[in-house]
């Protein structure tokens, strides 16, 4: 369909509408505000609804309500707002409500700054709210993927009845790139969610709920959730592999860092260094198997992970590699984006020391 040169954050809004998002509830925060503004601008034009909630705490609960009422719904924020949304995310997970949440990460902790960072990995991928739950986490690294993965988030959220987060950073949100937008999804042909509470006779006996007083019952419910997460791990892993076939060094990162890393791979390849990139597009489920496979390959000497954080995703890489090969980490924080040459230098240094 139409190609547009557009900001990542705006691509999220258009993607959401094309995916059939019916409602948006959110509270403004840099660098995610264009999503709220775009939603406020476009949703009413197509008969959908936008409401600025009084806080992130409220916005996610509005999503809880709308999702419980069977609608496709979205909210977006950045770190400080995500911290507040954790209450609602846990409830959505416990009540199995499909809500799409966009986190355009900024610098932290505390108020931090509005520069791009990736310090929310743990709070999003590892939980952050209370209880034994997971959310599906998608990690776009271009404006095109901001659209595509937002659309996918709606499909996966519905398929698994689970909150789904698009985890991105201020850089990807603020960057403009061409996006090929697909055709709008046909909402009228979507199956009515037979578990939701629409406020009609047909669904009157339905209950949206996360309370199970009896420990045995709650354990059974938790097992049900865990089984769902296992299925997600089995079916929904997505990654990009780049020049991995003969790679001796495997680099990895997500979001904006993966773009810089790709530049570094290209540069090193020109110099004859055998380096390739494995970029997770899903952070949960994490491409564990692919990492493990690479760790088994005799060619592969070591792994190099870069993040704009103190080292969060690297722990998942380590768990996947299981000490079979060294896993090195290089991080920048506070909003500093590593450069292609900086990463090249780090990798070459390691190449030297790893022999």
């Amino acid at each position: 369909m139409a190609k547009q040169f557009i900001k990542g954050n705006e691509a999220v809004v258009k993607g959401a509408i094309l995916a059939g998002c019916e409602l948006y509830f959110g509270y403004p925060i840099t660098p995610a505000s264009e999503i709220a503004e775009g939603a406020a601008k476009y949703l009413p034009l197509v008969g959908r609804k936008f409401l600025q909630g009084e806080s992130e705490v409220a916005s996610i609960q509005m999503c809880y309500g709308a999702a419980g009422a069977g609608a496709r719904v979205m909210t977006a924020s950045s770190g400080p707002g995500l911290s507040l949304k954790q209450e609602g995310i846990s409830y959505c997970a416990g009540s199995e409500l499909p809500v799409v949440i966009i986190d355009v990460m900024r610098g932290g902790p505390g108020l931090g700054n509005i520069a791009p960072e990736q310090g929310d990995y743990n709070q999003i991928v590892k939980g952050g709210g209370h209880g034994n739950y997971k959310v599906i986490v998608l990690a776009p690294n271009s404006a095109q993927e901001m659209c595509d993965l937002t659309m996918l988030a709606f499909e996966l959220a519905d398929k698994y009845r689970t909150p789904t987060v698009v985890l991105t950073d201020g850089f990807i949100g603020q960057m403009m790139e061409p996006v090929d937008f697909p055709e709008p999804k046909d909402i009228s042909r979507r199956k009515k969610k037979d578990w939701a509470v629409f406020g009609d006779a047909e669904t009157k006996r339905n209950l949206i709920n996360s309370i199970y007083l009896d420990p045995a019952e709650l354990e059974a419910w938790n097992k049900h959730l865990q089984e769902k997460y296992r299925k997600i791990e089995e079916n929904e892993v997505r990654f990009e592999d780049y020049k991995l076939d003969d790679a001796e060094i495997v680099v990895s990162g997500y979001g904006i860092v993966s773009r810089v890393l790709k530049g570094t791979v290209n540069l090193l390849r020109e110099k004859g260094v055998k380096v390739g990139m494995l970029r997770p597009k899903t952070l949960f489920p994490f491409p564990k198997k692919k990492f493990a496979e690479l760790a088994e390959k005799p060619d592969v000497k070591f792994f190099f992970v870069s993040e704009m954080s103190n080292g969060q995703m690297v722990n998942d890489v380590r768990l996947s590699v299981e000490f079979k090969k060294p896993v090195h980490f290089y991080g920048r924080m506070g909003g500093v984006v590593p450069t292609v040459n900086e990463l090249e230098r780090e990798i070459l240094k390691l190449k030297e020391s790893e022999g």
Partner: protein
Amino acid sequence: MAKDILSTPKSFYKEFFRKPDADKTNTHYCPGCGHGVIHKLLAEAIEDFGIADRTIIISPVGCSVFAYYYFDTGNVQVAHGRAPAVATGLKRANPNSIVISYQGDGDLAAIGGNNILQAANRGENITVIFVNNAIYGMTGGQMAPTTLIGQKTTTTPYGRAAANEGYPIRICELLSALSGPVYLARGAITDPATIMKTRLAIRKAIKAQMDYKGFSLVEILSPCPSGWRMTPVEAKKWVKEQMVKIFPLGTFKDETKEREPIAYEKREYTKEEIKQALGLDKEAPHFSHSMDDVKPIWRNPKIKISGFGGQGVLLLGNTLAEAGMEQGYHVSWIPSYGPEMRGGTANCHVQISTSEIASPVVDHPSILVAMNLPSLDRFEDDVVPGGLIIYNTSLVTRAPKRTDIESIPIPATDIADKLGSLKVANMVVLGAIIEKTGIVTEEAAISALNTVVKHKKFIPLNIEAIKSGREYVRNL
């Protein structure tokens, strides 16, 4: 009479199938608790209005967390205090449903204080049943925001002291200061007469919602014998003698007659309408161009554009990238963002490439545009050998020091000023880039302006500026 009122309505389950224990006919509430009575008043109203099928009752966190055991309606259980926010989501998703938020005083007036305030202020078309029992019943009798002065609770063992805990919150009085609510009333359930009034208030509140009139709330003073450490009889007496003094009964607001109903339109938009609304109904124009015609050093250019905020550096970058896209290339644009954005300077990074763009960040530009002196000072050293520096001599008072680069001095601000607007200095520079490098054609740049410039009336002036920039460079 009381018995008559409290006969089991149909929308109150006879057998509580969701209740996990063996006893499926008695509620989980303590003897003498107000919740049970209030449930029945509510169920009766739902029944009489014939709205059970489209009603959704929200079970809060508090003793009424299990309200869903009892109501033969749609049920949603929610987090502590968040019922008004969830109600908002439910209602906005399905405006024809009847959404009833059932909340205790801790839930509504403490942890959910802002949620109720904002929902009320929005005039959210929901009904709130607010059970004020001056205590946290469920957690064993701690202080509530409605606890009376001097009242002993487990967290005010010496009695609530105004100096430490403040005063009981009067929700009806508080909310009646807002324009949003259409109906606010406070009732009790101490005797048949007050029950009768409360019964009517609940109906009025629900009717307001059915008529799309907006936010309605009924506060009900409700005994909690267990939390208060009293017998049911003492508890009733305490409501009458103590609570009513602080929480007077009555109607605090009733604009149900005056208020216009909220109109809802629900229509599904066609794919064509959606595409049109999103501006996706037309293809971007295409212009032919070959990078082979560009001098090798400027092919697939990495461009940095820097200047004061207000010099249009972001727009210049945006136009270049848009034009590049319309010529069929991969392009990227990132604004200066975060730590780079200090002291009122702005810059952006643009790439135009025949192959996929890996990192969109431009650390070493092949083309640098310096609209002011700090930009030249800051980025000159980063330019790749053989690269191009275009600098605005109207503001940049020195030439580049580098000798391994090419440079174009251009008085962009002065040229723009002569054209009638300082704002188009950026377009003068665009003209210079086009003339010198040929990375985008004038045709593509003008087409890009149509997409990028918001106020179409400025386009002719922008075009004139591009042409002037080209001419200036041609004559250098």
